[in-house]
């Protein structure tokens, strides 16, 4: 079933999500979020090239939370602590929506140029009595300040590079999971997730796992409710030519 989703240019994952919900004229609830989950994921997949690399991780986090919410509805016992933490996505999105609406009003105020002005400040030189050196400023202080200015620039100058490195691709995760299954044959979900360092890595791991399940590379089994989920290799040979589709 070919689907085309038309959304305006979007600024970030919450913006995209909000546009999808508002286009469907839905209120922001858990249920409406799961309704647009597939569209969101499809959109991110299709638009991956246009999303700035430093923002891709942010999109993945939201994608994972949506997919997680959806799978929780199907498999209520499928619980991940990392993804359960924090305010729910609906609350976050409602808040974002309020600020977006307020920003439209601010934009109107900005553009009507109903501006206040302070007094113009006197032309510089008319006030220059004489050279007024700053007390306590020495060459060593200048050196120190210059070093601080330079150090502060480091992150700015390197942002694109660092952000690119921050993006953990699903493919990497799939490869990692595959490697570990080759070595151990079996693995538990907690065990797999236990190695992640932050939330974005957790969600990407989760997405990678779902992908492998969907493509029947691995099987997952849960013997009892509340028990950990076991991941087992099903057809690891397929891993080589797997084209991850995100979900």
């Amino acid at each position: 079933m070919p689907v085309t989703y038309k959304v305006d240019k979007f600024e970030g994952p919450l913006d995209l999500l909000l546009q999808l919900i508002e286009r469907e004229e839905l209120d922001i609830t858990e249920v409406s979020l799961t309704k647009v989950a597939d569209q969101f994921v499809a959109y991110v997949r299709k638009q991956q090239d246009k999303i700035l690399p430093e923002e891709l991780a942010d999109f993945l986090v939201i994608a994972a939370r949506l997919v997680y919410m959806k799978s929780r509805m199907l498999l209520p016992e499928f619980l991940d602590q990392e993804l359960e933490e924090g305010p729910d996505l609906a609350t976050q999105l409602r808040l974002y929506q309020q600020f977006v609406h307020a920003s439209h009003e601010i934009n109107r105020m900005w553009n009507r140029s109903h501006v206040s002005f302070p007094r113009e400040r006197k032309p510089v030189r008319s006030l220059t009595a004489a050279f007024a050196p700053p007390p306590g400023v020495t060459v060593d202080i200048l050196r120190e300040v210059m070093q601080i200015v330079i150090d502060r620039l480091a992150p700015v100058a390197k942002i694109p590079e660092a952000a690119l490195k921050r993006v953990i691709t699903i493919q990497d995760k799939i490869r990692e999971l595959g490697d570990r299954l080759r070595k151990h044959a079996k693995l538990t979900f907690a065990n797999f997730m236990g190695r992640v360092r932050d939330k974005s890595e957790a969600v990407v791991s989760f997405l990678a796992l779902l992908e492998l399940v969907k493509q029947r590379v691995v099987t997952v089994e849960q013997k009892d409710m509340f028990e950990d989920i076991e991941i087992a290799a099903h057809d690891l040979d397929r891993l080589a030519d797997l084209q991850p589709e995100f979900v």
Partner: protein
Amino acid sequence: MATPSLESKIEAVLFAGARPFTVKRLAELCEVSLKDVEEALDGLEKQLENTAVMIQRAGNEVQFVTRPEHAKLVQQVVRDEIMGELSRPSLEALTILAYRGPLTRPEIEQIRGVHSSIILRNLMMRGLVEEKEDSRLGQPIYSVTFDFIRHLGLKGVDGLPDYDELRGNQNVEDVLKDLDPEPLTKAENAEATKRMTV
């Protein structure tokens, strides 16, 4: 000649200084308490009611500005340095800071759901956002500037539509509470990077 009133002194300072003054500095200059200054500012505000000038506040700073209804006329005699349209991300960040500031960068990002360091830097370069002297959890905190507020023709951020509602919003508290107070250390970051790029 009678001793000038405190209102009158503060008026002279704000008028001649032609820049924002903190309430504290005004108190020092006039040799009175902070409370005296606050009261005098209220009195001054009343005196100015039917004039072309008003007191504008941003945080604990005050300055004199013309009332917005004179914008067209005044624009002909002074230069406005901060013109131009605002992009969507700029607007979002400014709105969040105006209603909910001062905030740290992670706090802004938590609300916007997207990286905001570049947009903050751009806004600071345009003079619409400033880094405050103090910090929170080791992070610098940001707020909107006088220039931004006066460009909207407001006396202060509390003149924004639905200010109390948006500022006091419980959702904001919940969303911000979720912020991890401990970002990855440098070493951890380097380690994570290494693993990711192999």
